[in-house]
């Protein structure tokens, strides 16, 4: 097959992936609304199909370009979406058995891919010399894995804040009821769930049954796990990037906008990890820090390439 044909196949599959994710998103949200297992199964099947199409699209793009398929923003975005969905299906649904977050994850993947095909599409071709290095493969892989896990963590954090608000409202409503509920039942009301943290959260689908979204404590722990998983990968990505910069640009660090923003993201998530270990910052406060980290991640990923010039904003688009 010719390069052109591979490129066509890659592009078609890219579109298949977007539409599958779209279907999956609808299915997941419908599942949230109606709690029918069938909806969840359909949504998961659509997500799986999209993931397969996404993956094959990335592989065929590599075949068309005769190199590893992560050399420009379009390709990073496809890979990011693929890893976010894959990470969700394996970690969140597979290991933690939380099913109700799918719609949000699909929305993120769709947005990433749509922006990529709208603004970043380039025909596959060889890389500019600075990108043609052994370290780029490592650096970009680590950066994308780290980003996808941070992104999942960010999505879960947003849901945590929503759920937390709702739970607090319920507690307030219960409190204002006269007469107060039986002591035994109200035992937990005064204990802010951020203190329950690691301790109590039963990570099972059972908790999702009635409440649709998992409990705030579950979401909080899940977000922490995802971010703690992502943090060393991101650290490694920054280090690999520095090694690459030392080889390509003669300095391991130069406060180039992309470097600066990956540093900012790193520092914010380091702050998040500290906040979780600091009395008085647990729960909502640290969640807000994680949210700021998520925004910083998006800026690192998009804004730097689109609006801020630097060595990293290759004219790959």
């Amino acid at each position, binding site marked *: 097959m010719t390069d052109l044909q591979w490129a066509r196949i890659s592009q078609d599959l890219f579109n298949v992936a977007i539409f599958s994710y779209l279907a999956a998103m609808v299915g997941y949200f419908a599942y949230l609304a109606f709690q029918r297992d069938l909806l969840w199964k359909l949504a998961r099947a659509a997500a799986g199909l999209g993931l397969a199409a996404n993956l094959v699209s990335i592989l065929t793009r590599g075949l068309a370009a005769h190199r590893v398929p992560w050399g420009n923003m379009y390709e990073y975005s496809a890979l990011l979406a693929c890893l976010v969905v894959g990470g969700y299906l394996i970690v969140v649904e597979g290991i933690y058995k939380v099913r109700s977050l799918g719609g949000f994850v699909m929305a993120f993947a769709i947005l990433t891919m749509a922006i990529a095909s709208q603004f970043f599409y380039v025909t596959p071709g060889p890389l500019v*010399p*600075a990108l043609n290095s052994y370290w780029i493969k490592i650096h970009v892989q680590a950066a994308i894995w780290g980003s996808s896990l941070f992104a999942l963590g960010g999505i879960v954090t947003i849901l945590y804040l929503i759920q937390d608000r709702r739970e607090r409202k319920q507690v307030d409503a219960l409190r204002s009821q006269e007469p107060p509920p039986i002591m035994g039942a109200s035992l*937990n009301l005064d204990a802010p769930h951020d203190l329950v943290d690691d301790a109590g959260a039963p990570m099972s689908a059972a908790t999702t049954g009635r409440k649709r979204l998992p409990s705030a404590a579950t979401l909080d722990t899940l977000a922490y796990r995802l971010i703690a998983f992502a943090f060393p990968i991101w650290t490694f990505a920054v280090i690999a990037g520095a090694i690459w910069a030392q080889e390509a640009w*003669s*300095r391991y660090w130069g*406060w*180039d906008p992309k470097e600066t*923003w990956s540093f900012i993201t790193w520092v914010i998530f380091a702050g998040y990890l500290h906040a979780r270990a600091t009395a008085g910052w647990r729960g909502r406060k640290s969640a807000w820090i994680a949210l700021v980290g998520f925004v*910083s991640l998006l800026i690192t990923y998009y804004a730097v390439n689109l609006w801020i010039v630097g060595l990293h904003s290759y004219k790959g688009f």
Partner: protein
Amino acid sequence: MPPSAAGFSLTQSVALVWRTLRSMRTALILLLLLALAAVTGSLIPQWPNSPERVLQYQAGHGLWGAFLQRAGAFDVFGSWWFVLITVLLFVSLVACLVPRTRATWRAVRQRPIQAREIDAFRHYRTIAVAAGPPEAVEASRRVLVRHLYRVARAEGTGDPTALAAEKGAAREVGSLLFHWAFILLLFGVIFGKGTGFSGYAVVTEGHTWVDARANYDGQIRTGRFFGGDFTGVGIHLRSFESDFRDTGQPMDFVSHVDLLDPQGNLIRSQDIRVNHPAKIDGLNIYQTAFGWAGVLEVRDGDQVLTRQDLVLSREPAPTGVPAFAMPWHGVLKVTSVRPQMAIEVELYPDSRALAQQLQTQQPVPMLVAYDPVISYKVWRGRLTDPSPTSLDTTFMKKTAEGVVGGGLTADLRTGKQLDPGRAAGGLTMSFPDLRHYSVLQVTRDRGVPIVLAAAILILLGLLPALYTSRRKVWVRAEAHGEGSVLQVGGFALQRKPQFEAEFDKLVEAIERAIDDGGSTTRVSDGSDREKVGSR
């Protein structure tokens, strides 16, 4: 220490500052401040990265620009406040690391502490076994050691058949390693940048460049503690190759060089290309840019006035025009004639591309040398500008202009190109050859290995700090009829839900190990006690 009546004494204030710096909250706030400072650095153009954009920004922002200038916002990462935040962060880091390290050191050496009431722990089981208390406890000890616990037996008369065990010290040790490694990182950065330098070498094909201060192109950037020691190493550029895509995007550029020792002996030959610097004598030599040098010879009759490989620079391209569509500029100065002479030169390396450009009125990149053409202007008068690259024509008059092709000669009086082979009298300029020059960045940073080592330690420390968990287990055996009853209690400091299964497995393993000696009966299956609200 007696509290002084009149407010804070000096020692008290120091102690207060120290206590504040030691708190995690301070570290957290400093980290967030650092992030905030870095944000400013990415939103406002930075002098070290893009001086032109700083000037542009200042021009457009009047008073605000002046304020930012005063505040150091155009060089955030070198500004006093960025340095202050960093210094405070590191002081805070040391302030909290020292006591933490001491505590960890003690904790690691200390034997695990016995528990008084095992049944008070969150995880608790009792099992009846056939073995006597000493044997049962010994078997438990072996199982715990096999599960990587540190185990201490109770001593003294009171409780000879109890033990305490814990594991997960790697968490704290890893965290300490991770934090200390930042100190090493900072040292590596300061040492490397402080004693290092960075500058540019411009070498034309066939020439040799020697590492000495005077030979650098323009300013070199030196660290604060730079000793002025240059190596005298030579770089001889044998040839240079560039490779482009059809779109004009550069694909690869390579300098084929011989590296020479200060005596001029060949050390080795090497290719320098993007991502593949040469390393010699502590120097790193990087391929950064390239261009054209016209070999130009000016004669007066038979007398050669000057022969140079004139390094030409490319005009910056306006937006939308490919960089390589622009001509290359230079000026050749001849001081040995009266009146003095300057020849302004404009090179079009590819005459095919030039023809196409003229025909279509569209910019066409000139990527290779193909029938190169030079257009020139001759100025006579007084040369006032000593710089080899710029020309001040205030006291000069243009006397001729024309074009000359590669391999040909032009008459500088008339501006006419001479037919090949024709001997010429008077002032002439010939253009026998066009060569590449290569721009190499030469840097020295002795801190790189230290920084790399610190980075590796950071990662190595981070993994156990985030992913290992501390657990404590206690066992006590009491004689019960023929055998004994074993109490096992457990407590997890991290990943508590996972410990439930771990604890079950541990108890089973203990049971099985004791079982090897006799039969066991389970007395109580003591389901885990939930202690609501406890941590």
